[in-house]
């Protein structure tokens, strides 16, 4: 009970619930999208050894790309396919007829449906898109942690110790980060550390920390001249205690919540941009030893196939990406409005 009160006080929960289930339909839609993706990810990642055979299954034929809504069945392939040997109703599948497809000895795979088709490795795209969401959970968590810590340090240094050397140094560091485009800093990280998870996510976290520090700067500057800070000083509390407990913890939680959502949105945006520019992070062996690709990597791959009519490998990751970014933006904007964060 105490922990619940301390970490999630009722007023905070009420605001979050109101912002999602309130009169704004868009943020509720955002929550539904996020929950669907998260539950799908959990379902896929916990069943990777069990009877859910879409993960381990791989098309064994010469044609790896099977179009969406294609039944894969050894025995009843001709009768079960949606539209005989011609094209189905969404995509042209004339290149990959049903007879070419065969399973690699997996008997569970008869009468299974590739809902969104397969990717270039011959794996089910629907399953692997949900698995790709896990990438953003891991990467988003790292970047969020870095940006919160770094942004809090910068913001509190620049505002609480305002007329002085510490504040000037913090502002100078902020200026250095702000005077570069995001993509140039990421390129610098790429050229120095290569395509690996931690350096790039830490860089994205540092880039985004300036937004948090900017918001914190204004709030702390306003708060530090208040009477309750004076009385805390009179009681003998030191600066660190006042800053961490009375200013940051009790009064700046809303900033962390609101900007946290935007940091995660930025992680998804920047990671998919890098992946599209052929600098996708090597995610092999990060999630349960399965070869996972981020949605941006699928978009980069799809460039090769899109002109030959195999559009599903580009369209569905793009829709997933758009839905996720939109839902995060909706939730973030509504939280911003509720918490009165500018």
């Amino acid at each position, binding site marked *: 009970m105490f922990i619940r009160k301390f970490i999630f006080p009722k007023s905070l929960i009420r605001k979050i619930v109101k912002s999602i289930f309130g009169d704004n339909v868009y943020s509720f839609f955002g929550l539904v999208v996020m929950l669907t993706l998260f539950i799908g990810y959990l379902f896929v990642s916990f069943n990777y050894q069990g009877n859910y055979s879409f993960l381990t299954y791989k098309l064994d034929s010469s044609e790896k790309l099977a179009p969406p809504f294609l039944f894969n069945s050894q025995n009843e392939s001709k009768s079960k396919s949606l539209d005989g040997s011609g094209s189905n109703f969404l995509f042209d599948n004339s290149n990959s007829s049903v007879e070419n497809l065969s399973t690699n000895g997996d008997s569970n795979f008869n009468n299974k449906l590739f809902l969104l088709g397969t990717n270039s490795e011959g794996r089910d795209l629907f399953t692997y898109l949900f698995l790709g969401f896990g990438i953003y959970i891991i990467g988003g968590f790292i970047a969020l942690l870095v940006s919160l810590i770094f942004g809090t340090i910068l913001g509190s240094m620049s505002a609480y110790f305002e007329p002085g050397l510490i504040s000037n140094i913090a502002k100078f560091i902020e200026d250095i980060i702000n005077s570069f*485009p995001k993509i140039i800093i990421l390129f610098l990280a790429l050229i120095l550390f290569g395509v690996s998870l931690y350096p790039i996510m830490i860089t994205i976290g540092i880039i985004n920390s300036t937004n948090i520090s900017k918001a914190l700067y204004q709030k702390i500057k306003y708060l530090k001249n208040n009477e309750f800070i004076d009385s805390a000083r009179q009681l003998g509390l030191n600066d660190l205690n006042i800053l961490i407990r009375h200013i940051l913890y009790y009064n700046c939680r809303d900033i962390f919540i609101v900007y946290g959502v935007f940091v995660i949105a930025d992680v998804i945006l920047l990671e998919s941009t890098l992946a599209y*520019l052929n600098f996708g992070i090597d995610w092999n062996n990060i999630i349960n030893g399965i070869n996972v690709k981020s949605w941006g990597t699928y978009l980069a791959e799809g460039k090769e196939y899109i002109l030959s009519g195999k559009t599903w490998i580009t369209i569905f990751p793009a829709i997933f990406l758009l839905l996720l970014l939109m839902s995060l*933006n909706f939730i973030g904007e509504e939280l911003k409005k509720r918490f009165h964060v500018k």
Partner: protein
Amino acid sequence: MKKVLRKNILMKFTWKLSYSLMLFITITFLAFISFRLSVNNKMIIHLGNGFIFSDFLSWIIKVFSSMDLGTTLSGKPVFGSLLKSFGKTLMLTVSSLIISFSISLILGWYWSNYGKNFAVQTFSRIINLISSIPLFLAAFIIVLLSPYMVIDITSDTVSTVDILIYYLVPIFTLSIFDGFITEMTNFIKIRFDEISSEQFITALEIRGGNIKKHIMKHIIYDLLTIVNSKFVTLIGGAIIIEIIFGWKGIGLQGYNAVYYRDYSLFMGVIIFTTIAIMIFNLTTYIVNHLIKNKYFIDNTN
């Protein structure tokens, strides 16, 4: 009065100039250190192998005295090749800045004046939706849908329509999908509400003055203060646009530098972008002060 003001501006400008120079030197120093300490170092001949501070000093003197940024992997001088491509990037960035600035001014003005109208509200919602489309995805879709890839600008039979498409499609893509318009319109809406509720506006209204003109002046002044940070994001967007549309600007050079690990070329890209951003910051600072002294003389004292 005027002399004092002019002196004040000069003092502030020299301080700003020295601050930006300090920033520039720090950034180049950080880049220098990171290249020196990197694992696969191919630049060691160019950057020196001795004490790091003296090496940096001699390097930066060499850069500014003889404009020598080393050579690329293909053997061309970095400075010349970057200077050639820098014009295209600057054109892309500045023209999209002007376009998005003017679009957002009109939209924001319309939205803040007629915000209760249903059509305006849905329109603003659509603009918000556009901002959540990633720039690279929008550019990718536009490249696919438009006849952009077919156009060969160097051929003799190229028509004026093709030339217009070649130049305008990337510029409009950058100006619409970079999130700039959304932020600006939101900012204008918020500032409009704030300024119109202030006392001097009500006083002006009672006297029968032109309120909208006054609010507009204040908003434009505020916009100039935030346009600095937007220029940086626009340069970042221009890099992505150049890579996807195949414009031979500084962004494509930077991308190739990362792809082939061309350290000296990337160092040149960093220096060029930083200098461009610094110059833009300084000019907006001066313009800000000129406007500030014209309309808000009381604030400067």
